[in-house]
């Protein structure tokens, strides 16, 4: 980058940083305010002018876990998002590879079906699933949420893994088979390790999508299967707008996803554009 910056005068750079400072202000103030408020004592919270200096407290976090049953909601979120991610990525690897390496008539229709499943509006999927879940008794259960999350994570994982496997030249697997590997070994020992970045990115995006879900859980979850986003939304109505606790729960929901998301930043573009744009 620096080599081609001949035309980039220091004056232009100063203006650039000034504008980007405003962009960062707009981006970061809400997040910083949320984290700050989660450590703010109740009294400072209820001031009509913003308070910036205060004695930090853990009271909101403590009361969430002691009185608010947050530990259970946290576990529910981990189980629902975790299992749906593991299932989606495992099956996504199998089907993505199968799709990438096979040629059959109507393949583009299959691809289109997969992508349109991923893109279907949540409001439209929730309706039939709600009735079907009532029949098979999956409402208010973690397995129900896992199935609900698979409706978008599975097509997503198949689609992305297909894109990653398509990029891989089949010659590597053919060479392994010449050396005596079976067809499955060629997949498992040669192709699969080579798409590790793709697997990790897919897993993290599946995790983020399901961890952040509100609409499915709001419809299907009950007392036994409440997830963190639902707990956050209910906090808002039950206890009469407790902004301190809300900031704390918000921080708990957001922080892990920011960390894992940034960890795969290089590959995010590929995943988020469903394979259409290749990153750096």
């Amino acid at each position: 980058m620096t080599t081609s910056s001949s035309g980039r005068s220091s004056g232009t750079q100063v203006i650039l940083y000034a504008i980007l400072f405003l962009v960062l202000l707009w981006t970061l103030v809400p997040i910083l305010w949320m984290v700050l408020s989660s450590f703010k004592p109740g009294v400072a919270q209820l001031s009509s002018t913003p308070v910036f200096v205060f004695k930090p407290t853990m009271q909101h976090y403590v009361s969430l876990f002691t009185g608010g049953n947050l530990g259970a909601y946290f576990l529910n979120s981990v189980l629902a998002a975790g299992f749906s991610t593991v299932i989606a990525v495992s099956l996504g690897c199998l089907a993505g590879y199968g799709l990438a390496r096979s040629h059959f008539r109507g393949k583009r229709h299959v691809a289109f079906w997969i992508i349109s499943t991923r893109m279907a509006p949540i409001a439209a999927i929730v309706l039939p699933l709600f009735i079907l879940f009532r029949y098979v008794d999956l409402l208010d259960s973690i397995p129900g949420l896992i199935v609900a999350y698979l409706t978008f994570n599975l097509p997503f994982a198949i689609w992305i893994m297909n894109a990653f496997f398509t990029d891989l030249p089949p010659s590597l697997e053919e060479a392994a088979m010449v050396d005596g590997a079976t067809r499955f070994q060629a997949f498992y020992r040669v192709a699969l390790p080579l798409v590790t970045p793709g697997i990790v990115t897919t897993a993290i995006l599946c995790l983020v999508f399901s961890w952040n879900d509100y609409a499915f859980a709001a419809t299907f979850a009950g007392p036994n299967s409440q997830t963190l986003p639902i707990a956050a939304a209910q906090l808002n109505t039950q206890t009469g707008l407790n902004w301190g606790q809300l900031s704390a729960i918000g921080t708990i929901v957001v922080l892990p996803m920011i960390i894992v998301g940034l960890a795969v930043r290089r590959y995010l573009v590929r995943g988020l554009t469903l394979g259409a744009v290749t990153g750096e």
Partner: protein
Amino acid sequence: MAVTQTEGRGSSGDTKGSAGGGGISLEMRMLVPVLLLLAVLSLFPFFYIIWMSLNIVSLINGISFDFAGLTNWTRMFTDEIVGAAWARAALYFVATVGLEMILGIAIALLVHELVWGKNLVLSLILLPMFMAPVIVGLLGRFLTDSSYGLYAYVLRELGIFERDILGTASSALPAVILMDVWEWTPLIVLIVLAGLASVNQYVIEAAKVDGANYLERLRYIVAPSIAGVVIVALLVRSMDAIRYFDIITVTTNGGPGNTTKIIPIRLYETAFRFFDLGYAAAIGLGMLVFSILVANVFVRILESRGLAR
């Protein structure tokens, strides 16, 4: 959730590179069972929602279906509330996606020119994108709360706006639009930056030598090279924009006075507040048609870029 023809008919299963053995290739044995599961997850609900839309569905003592033919459909096409919700959704859609595209492209162009700290700045800009939309909505409520909200305070002190932001008809829609813009502009920045990184540097340098200024280079070299990526960004964002409605649900839930009641919110209240599930199914199918159209354009663009083989 679209109808499709799986595999070829008859003898057209000309799978390549399969090492014989039992007739069915490993690729197919890996692919087909997963697709069957996906069919259960997607086609089953798809046909079910069509069936629902042809019935009056009641949840009172169990679930009962009353075949009603096209009643729900004819009702939908004459329902002014649903029509207004579609119009509002269109406005919300154009405003959020439009602002996100304009701001996202602009910010990406700025970040691309950075010499120092580019990675750090990008990472910080991306943060909102990883947040649960429901938390973004709740945080937005917090910031605009008329008693304790930071942004409400700033606007009040500056004398710009003194009323309850989310409770006032004129300001609620712009507020929820800005929350969406806050969260999803980073996605556009990320995608467009990837496009900018792939612009041929030699061509840029040659244009500089020939005396082309920044705007000319932007117009004649950068814009044509990133056009494809920008369209992908637009489509990806469009598909998600109709998917999610979490922010509005937890901020205004359609109010005040229906000013933020976009179509998924109307669907949700039709189904789960009025328990008119058959009618809600018809509305849902309308939304599905829209997203299938967008997905169709997306796949065509992928094919033209040689990425969906």
